[in-house]
């Protein structure tokens, strides 16, 4: 007897992707009884679930974001490759390379395997484990940057542009807009690797996630709060702040700020001009067009399902290589970092 097609046992529902034989949702967008969470970004990890299964780091980040109770009544941490039987399915996690703790979820049922990759990237990131391709029958992928215009340059080169601007405008404060979970810590690690040993100043909203990273063993060097620091102290410094803060009064208090933004969207000029960005940095924690296609080839799945993003282009492209694509059109994802 041939294996039942995964679309019979893993189905997109208003609450998220539901696996009936396991009785569980993956990254549900509303509170459910049993949830498997790929990573701690707010659009994937929502508060109020009953039992929550995730990597230890993801659970730690979730607790920091939503409190002990909000992160799930029963929390179970799973190490990479540790196999677990839930109902009639076997389930295990592999690193996704997106942010600290980010996982792909491999679900096996009656001889077929689906891998739900959550968000992922293939560029090197010193703050999290690198993506591991897992062979599967169906690969569930994001497509945030699923258009051929998105080609992220090496992040090190973009950091080089930031440091170059600091040398050109030593009297100005460089304030970089970046999301609190993942991008912030990656920027800090990249700056440290490029030899920037000076203290890095943080908007208050970014500090808690940095603390979790450090507790998980990711060294970030000297960090100082930017909100209480005197303006003069910030001359020639790097300040990191949430994207919403870089364009408002908070940033204007800084010394002649050069407003920078670190995001994959910065590749498109009109997007980069939004919010008065003067130095766009193309640094992303999502796979670009090339990475999406390479990954699909590497996992060798005959079929991909696209959760969110520019699904049309990606499905069109993989069809040329004989891969069947299906748009899940899950509502509620992709409204976070990029």
């Amino acid at each position: 007897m041939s294996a039942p097609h995964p679309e019979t046992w893993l189905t997109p529902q208003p609450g998220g992707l539901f696996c009936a034989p396991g009785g569980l949702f993956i990254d549900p967008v509303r509170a459910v009884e049993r949830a498997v969470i790929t990573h701690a970004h707010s659009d994937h990890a929502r508060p109020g679930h009953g039992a929550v299964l995730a990597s230890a780091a993801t659970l730690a980040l979730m607790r920091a974001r939503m409190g002990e109770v909000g992160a799930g009544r029963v929390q179970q941490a799973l190490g990479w490759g540790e196999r677990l039987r839930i109902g009639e399915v076997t389930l295990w996690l592999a690193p996704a390379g997106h942010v600290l703790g980010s996982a792909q979820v491999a679900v096996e049922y009656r001889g077929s395997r689906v891998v739900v990759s959550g968000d992922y990237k293939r560029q090197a990131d010193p703050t999290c484990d690198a993506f591991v391709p897992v062979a599967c029958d169906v690969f569930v992928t994001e497509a945030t940057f699923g258009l051929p215009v998105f080609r992220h340059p090496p992040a090190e080169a973009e950091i080089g542009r930031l440091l170059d601007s600091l040398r050109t405008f030593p009297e100005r404060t460089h304030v970089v807009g970046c999301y609190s979970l993942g991008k912030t810590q990656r920027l800090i690690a990249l700056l440290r690797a490029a030899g920037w040993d000076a203290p890095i100043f943080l908007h208050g909203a970014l500090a808690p996630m940095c603390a979790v990273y450090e507790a998980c063993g990711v060294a970030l060097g000297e960090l100082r709060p930017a909100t209480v620091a005197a303006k003069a102290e910030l001359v020639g410094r790097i300040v990191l702040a949430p994207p919403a803060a870089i364009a408002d009064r908070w940033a204007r208090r800084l010394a002649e700020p050069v407003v920078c933004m670190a995001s994959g969207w910065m590749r498109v000029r009109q997007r980069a001009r939004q919010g008065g960005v003067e130095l766009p940095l193309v640094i992303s924690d999502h796979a670009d067009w090339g990475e999406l296609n390479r990954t699909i080839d590497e996992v060798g799945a005959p079929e991909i399902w696209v959760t969110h993003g520019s699904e049309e282009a990606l499905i069109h492209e993989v069809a040329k290589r004989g891969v069947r694509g299906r748009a899940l059109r899950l509502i509620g994802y992709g409204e976070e970092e990029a």
Partner: protein
Amino acid sequence: MIAFAALLERLLFTQGRRDKVRLLRRFFASQPDPDRGLALAAIAGELRFASAKAWLIRDLAAARTDPVLFALSYDFVGDLAETVALIWPDATGTAAPPGLADVVAALEHTPKSLLPDLVGGWLDACDAGTRLALLKLVTGGLRVGATGRLARLALAELSEGRASAGDIEEVWHSLAPPYLPLFAWLEGRGPRPDPAEAPVFRPPMLAHPLEPEDIARLDPAALRAEWKWDGIRVQLVATAGGRRLYSRGAEDISAAFPEIVAAMDFRGVLDGELLVVRDGTVAPFADLQQRLNRKSVGAKLLADFPAAVRLYDLLFDGAEDLRALPFDTRRARLEAWFARTRPARMDISELIGFTMMEELAALRDGARAAAVEGLMLKQAASPYLPGRVKGHWWKWKRDPLGVDAVLMYAQRGHGKRSGSYSDYTFGLWRDDGELVPVGKAYFGFTDRELAFLDRWIRDHTTNRFGPVREVEPALVLEIAFDGVQRSTRHKSGVALRFPRIARLRPDKPAAEADRLDVLLQLIP
């Protein structure tokens, strides 16, 4: 080409006008001739290559990319040249990017059939930023947030006091790229270029919106009032060197209005409003639109949409410069000139008699005629001053019309709004209870409102057609607009002029939004 691309990139991301002028000045001071003059021409929109147009970019894209992927990318990026620049494979060879002068020379001399290979070869040698600058240059659509006016301010700074931006504007239209005599003059190496016989554009005098606090301060006796017509502002220039019809932005639109140019059988420079006039009645703006942005016009268009100019100022009578004279004196000269000249297809803008501001206010509010936007107020004693100088001329527009409509469809915006649903189709209730679309609005909202709308749309989507989402008919938008016309293109039978979102009304039940009848009654 690299220095030029870097300049464009910096200009695009620089916010302050002063900083942009500084960037431009630094570029003009540091780059050699003829490159800087060619760059100046490109920024001022004076560089056009007859054979290189959007078709070239489309052809290149078609030759090198998958059409489906290209279309989807273009939909997202919102700009043809940028889409090609981003989607083009990165340079692998060792060829150096071409220089600006080489590009200009090659484009002028290369036959059309060889252009795709030529430009494609250049793109292969460039990075994404230079590819974009090159494509924008080739197709003549730079739009980098800098204009000829800004460039002339930078040139004025470069001249270190030898010339003001206004001085440069007066000689501008007698010069051609790469502007070697201009740079020589500005740098003190040559004489002022003489525009005497050339039909050059004169910087126009612009009005400020009248603010409520201005009204009390104005002395009605020292003020002149005219209707503000809903056409386009033009300058008519007729000299020994030729005749030109310019738009307010110094664009030469003579070719689109040959009947006006033919009627300019005089010597002088006049300021006026271009309108479509049938049997003495000014037609709605939509009629004038039929005539705009054309390189030539046929007999039918000339007959169906006859153009005319309503004159309101005389800048030069023959070669005599009247601009330093007070408005009243210029007006008397205009009337005398008109009585003497009697040009076809022209008349004089009527002065409205009044003694109190209240009378004007009543006139403005009553100004619902199809082609009147409100009033123009001018100080009787003011000279004709270039630019938007405060305290001389005011425009006093009538209040916009408004309806409460229901959001029906949303589409992702192009360009900077490509991430959010920012194009909105809204509708009104018909008597049979059906909601019919009456228009689209793309602006009028704040970033905060945009974020609210975007989220609301994602949460209330009932159907998706490609980039378009149909939403639950549950959100009321207060729409402001300037007029209503009949339209066969819309199911509702009406089209709004200049619709924009005045306010979001999430508090108002959709059933209480306006009925289509409200609009039908407003059709003039």
